[in-house]
């Protein structure tokens, strides 16, 4: 590696060179005075491992390709990829499908997030937990779920419903909605929670209509959250690969597909790396632009204290029921269909796939020839895979939510223009560019475990930061000030003030970081060098060996474990801190 010293230099520079920590003053003054606010260095500490290491790898590839003496395979000059019309057309398609997917996901998530924040109803936690678990599944299984349920042989078609073909832009959007709905619900419902209920009461007493209230009150207050969720979903969809290929068909060559093809057809790593950079620049510019367009800070927010829930009128109840029915059909049904397929592989109940997985009685499960040795295939035992995945996820969750919390605090103390946008940049690195860049830097996978954990933290950071950022801003300072004045230490303050007030966002942040880690294939696969077997790697190996039924069984097992885990986290998050004598009352 050898990059440690550079980082510690940055850290010591931040220790020595900052004034505002010692003497309070408006942050803009410190910039004017030629001194950078300390949060700038925090930003650097996050961004250096996150963004610049993979970028360094990409740059190295481009440079190495330019060095080409010309004696080898005739390759297009690296810059030539920019002159092709297909490059720009694929960019257009990327923007089209990602924009549409993000828009529809958010439209669907708006009412649901309101209900999750304001009403208590049976299955509330289960919806969130299962939705988040869907986020963990590899895209191939999302594809199988969507096609299995909506496809020609799915239950809907067999019932005689005439469905439009899912092999279209509609299919892409549907699969992306299935994948991204849970994060949108989570981010938006956190936003709804932070709206001061007194504002609504004021609006009601002033006689505003429901619609007027939505547009004049809620929408402006929610716009930050909506924007944050939009950008996240947009980027995830922009970088999507297998889903776009299978539903979009041959004509639908997005940028990510174009990058892969530059490798595969032209065997031109330099051109592919250049396209990755171009993609990063454009999406990065868009992200920053969207962020700069909104300068205002959240106002009138407070963390919720559960209020008595209003009696819902009967008409609303019916409308809500209809809404949740549609959502369940859209998102949960495909997922449950996967579970059904795992237990009924040939239409009748069978447990063999699970037995094979744990080799309970391998002889009976494969009557011909030798038993399928799952352990040899995935190069680890299924139980070991589950434990190591959960262990890595817990580490990534802790590391990322700690880093994001501290970064958010530092940015609250020393605001930095566009910092929110800049911190989203690491997630713009797509799977292809990440494995390209990191693979170039760590060719033998030397980093192994630490590298995988670090890379997954980097991948999860933007999402986690988004979940925590507004909550930290909304956190009242006066409690902390009081506690400090009364002589409370850092840990005591965190335990008694920050954590109880931020319980829900912190636990959500942890859950999402863990979900990113559990669902990550690229980093584990590239940096783990085949030695670190997480669930997606194991699934990949099973499917590569045509063992789709055992892959399905393992996926359902994953779904079960992750759903249970998130149920616990949700239960912990929605516990009322007031009941434990927290500081709220």
């Amino acid at each position: 590696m050898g990059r440690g010293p550079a980082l510690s230099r940055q850290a010591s520079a931040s220790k020595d060179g900052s004034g505002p920590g010692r003497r309070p003053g408006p942050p803009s003054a410190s910039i004017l005075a030629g001194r950078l606010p300390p949060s700038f260095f925090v930003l650097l500490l996050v961004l250096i491992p996150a963004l610049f290491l993979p970028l360094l790898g990409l740059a190295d590839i481009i440079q190495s390709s330019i060095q080409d003496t010309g004696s080898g395979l005739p390759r297009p000059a690296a810059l030539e990829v920019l002159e092709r019309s297909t490059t720009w057309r694929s960019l257009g398609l990327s923007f089209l499908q990602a924009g549409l997917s993000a828009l529809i996901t958010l439209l669907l998530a708006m009412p649901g997030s309101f209900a999750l924040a304001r009403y208590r109803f049976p299955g509330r936690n289960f919806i969130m937990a299962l939705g988040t678990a869907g986020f963990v599944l590899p895209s191939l299984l999302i594809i199988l779920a969507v096609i299995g349920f909506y496809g020609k042989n799915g239950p809907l078609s067999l019932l005689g419903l005439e469905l439009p073909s899912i092999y279209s832009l509609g299919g892409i959007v549907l699969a992306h909605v299935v994948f991204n709905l849970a994060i949108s619900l989570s981010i938006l419902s956190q936003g709804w929670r932070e709206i001061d209920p007194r504002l609504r009461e004021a609006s009601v007493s002033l006689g505003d209509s429901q619609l007027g209230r939505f547009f004049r009150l809620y929408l402006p207050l929610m716009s930050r959250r909506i924007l944050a969720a939009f950008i996240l979903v947009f980027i995830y969809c922009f970088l999507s690969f297998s889903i776009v290929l299978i539903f979009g068909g041959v004509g639908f060559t997005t940028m990510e597909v174009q990058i892969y093809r530059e490798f595969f057809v032209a065997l031109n790593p330099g051109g592919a790396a250049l396209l990755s950079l171009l993609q990063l620049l454009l999406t990065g510019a868009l992200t920053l632009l969207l962020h700069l367009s909104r300068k205002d800070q959240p106002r009138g927010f407070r963390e919720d204290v559960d209020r008595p829930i209003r009696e819902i009128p009967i008409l609303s109840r019916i409308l809500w029921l209809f809404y949740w029915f549609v959502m369940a059909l859209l998102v949960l049904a495909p997922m449950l269909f996967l579970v059904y397929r795992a237990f009924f592989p040939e239409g009748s109940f069978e447990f063999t796939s699970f037995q094979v997985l744990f080799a309970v009685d391998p002889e009976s499960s494969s009557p011909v020839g030798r038993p399928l040795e799952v352990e040899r295939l995935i190069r680890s035992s299924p139980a070991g895979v589950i434990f190591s995945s959960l262990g890595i996820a817990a580490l990534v969750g802790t590391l990322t939510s700690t880093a994001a919390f501290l970064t958010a605090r530092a940015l609250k103390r020393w605001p930095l223009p566009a910092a929110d946008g800049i911190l989203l940049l690491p997630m713009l690195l797509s799977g292809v560019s990440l494995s390209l860049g990191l693979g170039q830097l760590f060719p033998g996978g030397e980093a192994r475990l630490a590298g995988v954990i670090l890379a997954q933290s980097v991948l999860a950071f933007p999402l986690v930061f988004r979940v925590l950022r507004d909550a930290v801003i909304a956190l009242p300072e006066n409690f902390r000030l009081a506690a400090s004045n009364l002589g409370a230490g850092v840990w005591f303050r965190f335990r008694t003030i920050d954590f109880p007030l931020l319980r829900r966002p912190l636990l959500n942040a942890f859950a999402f970081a863990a979900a990113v880690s559990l669902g990550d294939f690229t980093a584990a696969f590239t940096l783990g060098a085949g030695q670190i077997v997480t669930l997606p790697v194991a699934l990949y190996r099973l499917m590569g060996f045509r063992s789709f039924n055992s892959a399905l069984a393992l996926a359902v097992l994953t779904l079960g474990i992750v759903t249970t885990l998130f149920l616990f986290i949700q239960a912990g998050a929605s516990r009322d801190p007031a009941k434990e004598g927290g500081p709220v009352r």
Partner: protein
Amino acid sequence: MSRNLYLIQYFPHIAYPVPSLPPDRREGIHMPYSRRPLVLVASVFIGFVLSVSVFASGSSQKPAERSVLAYTYDSFPGDIVDAMSAILAQDGISLKVEQSGDSGSVYTRLYLERQEPRADVFIGLDQTYIHAILADGLAEAYRPASFQPAIPELSLNPDLPVLAFDYGYITLNYDSEALPNPPRTWAELLDPRLSQSIIMLNPGTSSPGRNFLLLSIEQLGEEGFLDYWRQLKPNILTVAGGWSEGYGLYAQGEAPLVVSYDSSPAYHRIFEGSERYKTLAIEGSGYLQVEVAGIVRGTRDREAAEKLIDALLSPEVQALIPLNQFMYPARAGVALPEGYLAPEQAVTSPVLMDEARIAENYTRWLAEWEEVLR
């Protein structure tokens, strides 16, 4: 002093904290211990980077003994690696295998390291990369004296510095439950009864997909293939990006026909005891897909690299290929397991296009094909 006044002012409102105070004013207030977050972030990340470096230095200590390093893809079977290790150990050579990604990433690594190669041997590139390996001069020629290929095509072009170690045929597979009467000819494949029944693999992102497109070009002629695909289009359900996606859909019953290997049904026969999935060699044709290995140009230990290639082609290791790779062993005289292939579905006329011709035309063919399928 002013700080305390502030507290007294706001402490009673603790249940509805500071709703009226604009955020910038709140942020201007000095907090004690305000550097702690910064220091904590710094130490977390520095700690992490340090531990990464420690891991890195720990694993890069090389054993002093003679060793050979091979690159291969992730799904290369562990059984075969173990068997090769055992053979090399007899000569006091230790085998180190780095498995990463797919064959595309193996090629990319070889290409990017061409000035200072790390590896001695690469195992598992298919035809997509053979031409580039030759043009880039990434491999050193080696012909083991005692090796006889199973079929004459496997001796490849004698100029190629690579050696085939297994092979298979790219054909269609069909689901005999959903499709009891499969089409047998290219013309029958156009039958409207097969509407939306074929899962094709994208020739722009997958090697089997590429080879199936080449098969159609070789069989139907460079003039006729586009017209054929135009007629076939209504029968294609989707074009999957990779083999896993395509075969996954097929195995889940989404369509009865898929582009795959002729040996794929052997998996279901042997591990699932199912005769449901069968090979469909259209008019007996199949594109010969070859996996090759070779010695990296600039290897530090040419003799050890040769020994590794010999081990890969040895009868013991070749016998492991059918059930681990679901491909055929390249060595002549290595028996297949019983019931491995149903003879009536065998590929009788293998197709292999000249690599130079492919290199010259492939980009154009692909663009034309995409225009038709768009």
